[in-house]
């Protein structure tokens, strides 16, 4: 049988072919773009935040919490600020308001503290009321701040006032105790100074011990207020006050001891004993003191305990010794002043009796009269020249009717500087009158006017002659202008030309020199020395006054300064002529007798003015010249191998003798007066008030 074959095929079916995952790149691109935009926005935002923060800070900085009167003004933030700027600005502005509130409250607290000093409760009430009122008026935003700040300041100040009050009370107590101790020391000084006894067990000693105990108490109570050295200083000061007062008491009693009341030597003796007391305090020992001095000290109340260690340390002793030294100096000054016053009295008496006083005595007299400067004398000069009382009459007589050397205070008036100053003050004519009246004397026989130099230098004499000539002659301008012109002429570069112009030329058309002019102006017998002397002044005279007036001045001046003397060798005119140096007859007599006594010792028979003459030594000046004695041939007159010299020393000694005599008389008179006083005091002690006859 046939077999039927079947196709053996493989079965094929359509099946799902799976999934192709689409690309995510587009998604990623979109997301990246999103991130980019987001980041861009974030960055721009952050940048803008910074900008806005700065705007906020700037706005806050320009924001004023107070007005021009420093009063707080509550204002909103400036318009137009972003939220971030506002957030940044607000804390700063809040701080400003807080600070302003704090400042206001502190100021108010300070004011109230002054009003309620030492009263903490009063301050607290007043300040609390102020804080409450401030909080009510404050912007609500700052109300809490105002209350907090106020509470803090109130608490702090109240506590401070409490502390201050306690401190002040304690300090006042300390001050009171300190003042009391200081006052006790001063009282003790005054008590002893008033003459209280100073021995052990005396009231003064008890006061001293009490004050020492007060210092103990002060240290116990207020030791913390005192510096390390204060206690020691207080004790030292008290001891010095106590010891110093005792020393002063001794010195005062010493000065009052009867044996030291002798007007001539008593004060000197007292000064010596005081000096010994100083040495005792300085050395801390009485070993070196003479018994006689010790007796004086004991009589005055001094005891060895005063320098013992329980009263003084060595430094304090030296301090007291210094104080005693000052007391001694003061005593010496008083002594000197007394002596000076006594001397002035003697000088006054000498002058009033027509005597002559030395320049030192004249200076002392005028010092005592109160004329110690040119100004003081010049201001009083009108009264002196037209005296209204006895005192000024006496001074006038001394100046105008006496030939003693003038005191410095008068001579200084005529120096160039002072003349110029007086010219500026309008007092120059007065000064010139004074010069004329003090140096001009009418001759007894009426033959003319004599000049007494009275210790004024030749230069000043020439200067005054020039000035006087100007006043009496060409005066074409004020004295002020005169001095100005003189000063200008000194510095004028055309000086030489002007001088030549004034001097002119001689007959031969030749320029006259200043030397020739002086030759022609001076007397024919003028010496070369005289010519040389005036050559110094001639230029100024010609420039100031012209040749005619200058000639007149030179002639007059030459006869005042250079005098022809029969005693000067060769009989020439000289600045040093004895007739000029000793214008008083008495002085001239003394000089002649003195010189003759020297000549008597010479190897030969000489007589002054006959065969013995004088050659001046210019080194000693013209006021009190020194001369060499020579014969007719100008040969030195010898005594053995020694050339003989003479001077005005004898005149000076003679004047001193006269003064001494007057001084002794005055002292004698003082002794008499002192005895009268003692007698008067004794009568009072005895209850007899009758006057000593």
């Amino acid at each position, binding site marked *: *049988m046939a077999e039927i074959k*079947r196709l053996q095929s493989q*079965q094929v*079916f*359509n*099946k*799902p*072919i*799976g*999934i*192709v*995952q*689409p*690309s*995510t790149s*587009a*998604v*990623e*691109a*979109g*997301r*990246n*773009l*999103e*991130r*980019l*935009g*987001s*980041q*861009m*926005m*974030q*960055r*721009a*935002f952050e*940048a*803008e*935040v910074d*900008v*806005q923060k700065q705007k906020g800070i700037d706005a806050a900085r320009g924001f004023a919490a107070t007005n021009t009167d420093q009063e707080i003004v509550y204002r909103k933030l400036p318009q137009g600020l*972003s*939220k*971030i700027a506002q957030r940044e600005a607000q804390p700063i502005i809040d701080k400003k308001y807080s600070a302003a509130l704090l400042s206001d409250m502190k100021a108010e607290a300070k004011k109230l503290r002054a009003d309620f000093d030492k009263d903490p409760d009063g301050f607290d009430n007043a300040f609390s009321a102020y804080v409450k009122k401030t909080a009510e008026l404050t912007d609500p935003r700052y109300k809490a701040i105002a209350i907090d700040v106020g509470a803090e300041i109130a608490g702090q100040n109240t506590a401070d006032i409490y502390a201050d009050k306690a401190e002040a009370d304690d300090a006042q107590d300390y001050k009171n105790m300190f003042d009391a101790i200081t006052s006790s020391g001063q009282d003790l000084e005054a008590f002893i100074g008033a003459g209280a006894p100073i021995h052990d067990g005396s009231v003064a000693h008890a006061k001293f011990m009490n004050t020492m105990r007060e210092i103990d108490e002060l240290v116990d109570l207020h030791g913390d207020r005192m510096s390390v050295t204060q206690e020691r200083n207080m004790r030292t000061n008290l001891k010095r006050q106590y010891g110093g007062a005792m020393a002063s008491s001794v010195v005062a009693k010493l000065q009052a001891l009867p044996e030291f009341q002798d007007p001539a030597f008593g004060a000197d003796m007292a000064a010596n004993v005081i000096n010994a007391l100083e040495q005792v305090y300085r050395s801390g020992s009485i070993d070196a003191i003479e018994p006689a001095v010790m007796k004086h000290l004991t009589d005055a109340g001094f005891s060895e305990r005063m320098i013992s260690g329980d009263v003084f340390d060595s430094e304090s002793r030296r301090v007291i010794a210094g104080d005693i030294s000052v007391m001694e100096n003061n005593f010496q000054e008083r002594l000197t002043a007394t002596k000076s016053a006594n001397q002035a009295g003697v000088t006054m008496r000498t002058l009033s009796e027509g005597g002559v006083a030395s320049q030192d005595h004249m200076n002392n007299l005028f010092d005592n009269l109160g004329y110690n400067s040119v100004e003081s004398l010049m201001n009083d000069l009108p009264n002196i020249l037209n005296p209204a009382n006895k005192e000024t009459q006496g001074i006038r007589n001394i100046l105008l009717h006496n030939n003693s050397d003038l005191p410095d205070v008068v001579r200084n008036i005529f120096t160039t500087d002072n003349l110029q100053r007086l010219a500026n003050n309008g007092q120059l004519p007065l000064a010139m009158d004074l010069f004329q009246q003090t140096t001009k004397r009418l001759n007894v026989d009426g033959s003319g006017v004599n000049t007494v130099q009275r210790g004024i230098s030749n230069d000043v004499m020439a200067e005054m002659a020039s000035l006087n000539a100007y006043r009496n002659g060409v005066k074409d301008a004020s004295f002020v202008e005169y001095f100005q012109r003189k000063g200008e002429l000194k510095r004028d570069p055309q000086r030489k030309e002007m001088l030549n112009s004034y001097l002119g030329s001689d007959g031969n058309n030749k320029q006259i020199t200043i030397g020739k002019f002086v030759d022609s102006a001076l007397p024919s017998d003028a010496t070369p020395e005289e010519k040389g002397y005036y050559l110094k002044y001639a230029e100024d005279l010609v420039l100031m006054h012209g040749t005619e007036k200058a000639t007149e001045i030179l002639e007059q001046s030459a006869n005042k300064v250079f005098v022809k003397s029969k005693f000067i060798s060769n009989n020439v005119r000289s600045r040093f002529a004895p007739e000029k140096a000793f214008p008083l007859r008495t002085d001239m007599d003394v000089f002649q007798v003195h010189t003759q006594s020297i000549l008597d010792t010479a190897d030969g028979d000489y007589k002054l003015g006959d065969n013995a003459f004088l050659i001046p030594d210019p080194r000693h000046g013209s006021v009190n010249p020194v001369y060499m004695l020579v014969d007719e041939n100008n040969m030195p007159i010898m005594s053995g191998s020694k050339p003989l010299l003479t001077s005005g020393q004898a005149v000076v000694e003679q004047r001193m003798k006269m003064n001494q005599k007057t001084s002794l008389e005055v002292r004698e008179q003082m002794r008499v007066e002192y005895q009268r006083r003692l007698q008067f005091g004794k009568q009072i002690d005895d209850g007899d008030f009758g006057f000593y006859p």
Partner: protein
Amino acid sequence: MLQFLAMSNPALMIAGAGLSIYGSMQAGKAEQQRQRSIAAQQEQNAKFEQLSAMQAHNERQDRLATLIGMNETSRAVNNRGSNDRSIAALTKAERKKSATVDGRARTQSMLTISRTKFAAADARASGNQAMRSALFQSVNTGIQAYDRISQVS
């Protein structure tokens, strides 16, 4: 470019926000398209699965018909009557067996198609969700930009 740099910060912020929104929308749109593409493929797979199931069914029916034909032929060859019970029982058993296999295959095929269709629907939904998400993101960016600008202006 320089003009861009010279822009003020707020302007830059607005520009940045714009870029961010645009990028966000673009990303959503791209995701949506991608998911749609996946969905389309899944749907295509479902169709293929259905076609495959039908083809397998037809194959099984062919083989059953062939078997039955061969058995009928064999019965005829062997002079068996049409009411030969053994052949009938055998055929009946084959038919029953075929019906069981068909049933199982159909169920499996339906499950697979259903799953694939679900995957397609899910991809589409995912795409829509991505688009919606991009929209929300854009709105967020806009709000953020507005907030920041309002802080600095």
